[in-house]
């Protein structure tokens, strides 16, 4: 048994829980706040101001980015010190991974918020449609290889799948950037798509 001598389930469970909680919290935070501005009508005010849609989105993301990053460090530290997760690889790389993943989740939240009208719809969209698939299809509970092909494809477009690979490779295997540039690249590409699509819908709403 390489990398996990005693077949401990925390090695699989903690990265999974980190990915799940970060995704839900970040996506929820942003989708709900933007939907709230819509509901209360303050988004109208913002959109007639000279601020561009890019600025609105960036301004919305930054506070939650800091919050979620803080969140992820607390969970990872708990994982290391309470549950004995190893930390073999580079800390800088781990921080970078958290950063990229959090930005991806936040922009997913923004995408959801541009598509819904009310806070409740935003909540249901983020919680109901993200939670169970992220849990079951990201390789957290069932191995990805054993999924049927269509579900494997879905699994690949779930950000958590790639984040779990990153966390496990960095923390447990100590992999360097040359081995894990691919998940990094996929997460960044996802973020770009989410942001582009949401800017498009914001512009259309105007």
């Amino acid at each position, binding site marked *: *048994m*390489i*990398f*996990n*001598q005693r*077949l*401990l*389930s925390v*090695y*699989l469970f903690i990265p999974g*829980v980190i990915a*799940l*909680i970060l995704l*839900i919290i970040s996506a*929820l935070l942003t989708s*709900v*706040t933007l939907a*709230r501005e819509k509901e209360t009508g303050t988004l109208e005010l913002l959109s007639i101001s000279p601020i561009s849609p890019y600025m609105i989105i960036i301004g919305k993301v930054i506070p939650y980015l800091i919050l979620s990053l803080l969140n992820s460090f607390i969970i990872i530290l708990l994982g290391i010190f309470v549950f004995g997760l190893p930390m073999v690889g580079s800390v800088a790389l781990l921080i970078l991974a958290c950063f990229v993943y959090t930005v991806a989740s936040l922009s997913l939240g923004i995408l959801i918020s541009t598509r*819904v*009208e*009310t*806070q*409740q*719809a935003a*909540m*249901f*969209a983020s*919680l*109901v*449609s993200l*939670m*169970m*698939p992220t*849990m*079951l*299809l990201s*390789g957290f*509970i*069932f*191995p990805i*290889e*054993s*999924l*049927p092909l269509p*579900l494997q494809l879905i699994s690949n477009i779930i950000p958590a799948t790639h984040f779990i*690979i990153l966390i*496990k*490779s960095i923390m*447990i*295997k100590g*992999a360097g950037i040359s*081995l894990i540039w691919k998940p990094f690249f996929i997460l960044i590409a996802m973020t770009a798509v989410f942001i582009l699509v949401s800017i498009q819908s914001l512009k259309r709403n105007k």
Partner: protein
Amino acid sequence: MRNILVLVRKEFLQIFRNRQLLPFMTVLPVVQVILLTFAANYEIKNLRLGIWDLDQSASSSQLVHKFTGANFFQATDLIDNQKKADDLLMQDAIDLVLVIPKDFEKNSKLQNSPPAVQFQINALNNSKAGIVQNYANAITQDFMSELRGNANVIGSAKIIPVTNFWYNPTLNYKTIMLPGIVAEVMTLIIILICALNVVREREIGTIEQLNVTPLKKHEFILGKLIPFWFIGHFIFWAGIALGRLIFHIPMVGSLGLLELFLAIFLFVPLGIGLFISTAVETQQQALFTSFFFIILFILMCGLFTPVETMPDWAQWVNQLNPLKYFVEVNRLILLKGSGFAEIYPFILKMFVYGIGINALAIWRFKKTS
């Protein structure tokens, strides 16, 4: 009574009028259950196998053949040193390295020597590694007993239970998982809509209007709970019916009994939602509070990790997890066919739990408004 019916009608009107929310409450959960059940599978094929054959004998190539012929393993790489094995494991390019030592052929002919091959398994994913190990052991033992001849009855008798255990897992997982996932999704949605609904009325101020009507508190609360009680029923039975059609989940026990349990059970998530709604100010707070409970309930309900292996304090906390009981009752009724006598303690517990949490919610509700 009439007041309650009017309120129920009002809630249903609101639910059906909300075109954006309605699919999230009804269709989406059922679709998800079906889709996700396909994921419920621990059987793995096409595991990537690295071969490091130091013996290069007839026996060793037979063993390799046996591995690659078993359609679980796919030979991807030939390895000749530990460095290469490490590299491949690091890149996640292989799941298992099969190391066949020198003198394998010579030693394996001896009756009493243990199988002298080594497996280096990538154990990042512990559940997968367990499966890999079991497959690999089964294949090797099988090979050994063939090599030593069938005369060695004791040797081969030991092997059979291992192989039987691993070759029939697919169907079982789905049938166990589906009712559990249905229960999880249903509970998630019920807690959430119940918590959000009341808070929303408070946020937009319509609760004030209801407060000045001659409506009694308990009428108001029942009027809120009953529509969601029906939605819970819809999600559960739609999920189970589709599960029956698509996955042929077994239904050994009485469905009437399951319905009786469900009818009482639903008041627990409803009460939890209601209680959350009395404790928070805004929809956002309600959401995050519900999320906290839901994720604990789902991960600890015993569907993915057995309850029995949790530490004592966690098991103690888990007594308050309604999903734990539901998952157990699902198994007892659908798979085992338990009768009323066995389900009775669960129904009683849910009854007490439901009354307790709802009473608490109503009490808080009176104080806050």
